[in-house]
């Protein structure tokens, strides 16, 4: 049984973007703060701090969650993937490529959360309907795009991932 007073730190060991990691955190630190401040992974954004906008979305054991509502101590023994964990050696994940291709990024603030929510959907449901896509990103707010390009980007990513790649530009 772990018992950590406010003057002490909680030691957590977890997998972060595929790497086993250990860090000491304050008892009341949010996962969002630890990712941004302790690890410098600022791709995860704070849009509201109360779980209403999805800008802070990360994947916890493969499932999208609002990192502003997760106590850092709770990820001990679990797997966390942030937006930085999607690209490998600088090569963008198909979902990221699709977002660029379909101009689904304007200011970019919602994008990390949207991309992770979309990736989690495609991991479970490789060929989602438009309705399923909209439901999968229903926890992510976007003030710029009106969502249409985002849905299209997920459809494009789905085609890329299931092998129906579109010919043409590799932007």
């Amino acid at each position, binding site marked *: *049984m*772990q*018992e*950590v*007073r*406010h*003057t002490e730190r*909680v030691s957590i060991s977890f997998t972060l973007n595929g790497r086993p990691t250990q860090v000491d955190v304050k*008892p*009341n630190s*949010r996962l969002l703060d630890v990712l941004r401040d302790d690890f410098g992974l600022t791709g995860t954004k704070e849009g509201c*701090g*109360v*779980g*209403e906008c*999805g800008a802070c*979305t990360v994947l*916890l054991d493969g*499932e*999208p*969650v*609002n990192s*502003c*509502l*997760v*106590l850092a*101590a*709770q990820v*001990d*023994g679990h797997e966390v993937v942030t937006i930085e964990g999607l690209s490998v050696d600088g090569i963008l994940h198909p979902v990221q490529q699709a977002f660029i291709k379909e101009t689904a990024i304007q200011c970019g603030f919602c994008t990390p959360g949207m991309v992770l*929510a979309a990736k*989690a959907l495609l991991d479970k449901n490789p060929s989602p309907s438009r*309705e399923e896509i909209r*439901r*999968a990103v*229903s*926890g*992510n*707010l976007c003030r710029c795009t009106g969502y249409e390009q985002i849905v299209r980007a997920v459809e494009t990513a789905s085609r890329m991932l299931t092998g129906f790649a579109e010919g043409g530009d590799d932007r």
Partner: protein
Amino acid sequence: MRYGYVRPDSLPEALRWLAQRGSETRVLAGGTDLMVQLRQKSGDLVIKSRVLEPGTLAGDGIGAGGGGGGTGEAQIWLMDISGLSELRGISEFVDRLEIGALATHTRISESILVRQRACALAEACASIGGPQIRNRGTIGGNIANASPAADTLPALVVLDAAAAVARWEDGRVKVRELPVAGLVTGPYQTALASDELIVSVRIPLLAAEARSAYIKLGRRNAMSISRLAVAAWAVLADDGRVTDVRICPGSATPRPMRFSQAEKVLLGKLPSADLVVEAARTVGDAMVAVTGVRWSTEYKRPVVEALSRRAIAAVLGLGPAGSAGPRGSCCDGGDRDGLRRLDGVIERENGR
């Protein structure tokens, strides 16, 4: 405010902790309510969902004589129970469905068992927040937080659900069972003592052919607190008559309650559009009787009537095939638009 963190490895450990320090502890499961409450400007955390024990708290906040250091500022313990896997399961027994308190809304809404045997609960859980919230929020937390707008509560009431509540006593875990309707006593108030934990929810499975539904209205289609909702459950006899029915609105009363006057309109009768309208009107009247006439009544009464028409039509099998269910979650592939069309027909026929 100072926070300590405690993570029990088992239910008995958790309960032993609460027996000692329940009054200085907030239980953390999914965190979708607690993590928001921790940010509230009032600074001191008010224990909302636990019964305040006389003498342990001063005024509205935690602080008097608490366990902090020399400054006298108290420490609140955040007890993280998210690791108690024994509380996560969903199981079917001969006479009941048992859902662990830590089952998430995602898991409950996707569970074949729940969709088949307790559809209204699957629909209610599917309507909470968005995917990220549903992946963390738990049924135990939704009950214990006891928001008057909580989505699981009306569904649990019409399903006649009971909560199993545990505490540490006489050197062992002791469990008592009480109806969910009795556990929630008012807005953000429950009958839970500070040393108690909800461990599971039990839904009786007495009528295999019962239908249930949960219809919710929010300001948006997702990420929306329930503005008004209606849960309904019904059993029909072989000749089609209503043998049993339960109706419970959400976000309409200080605590969730069945509207028996509306139920009586339907009992023993053959379903018909007229009957649905009359029962729905009774729901509206009953709501106003409970809450009194308010500024919102002019809006809420026709809306709760409309939601009641849809929920009642769904559980009486009146809609187009499988028309129960709000957007995005229909236990039998329901036709939400069909329900709206039926509702429109009923409205026109009744000259509204």
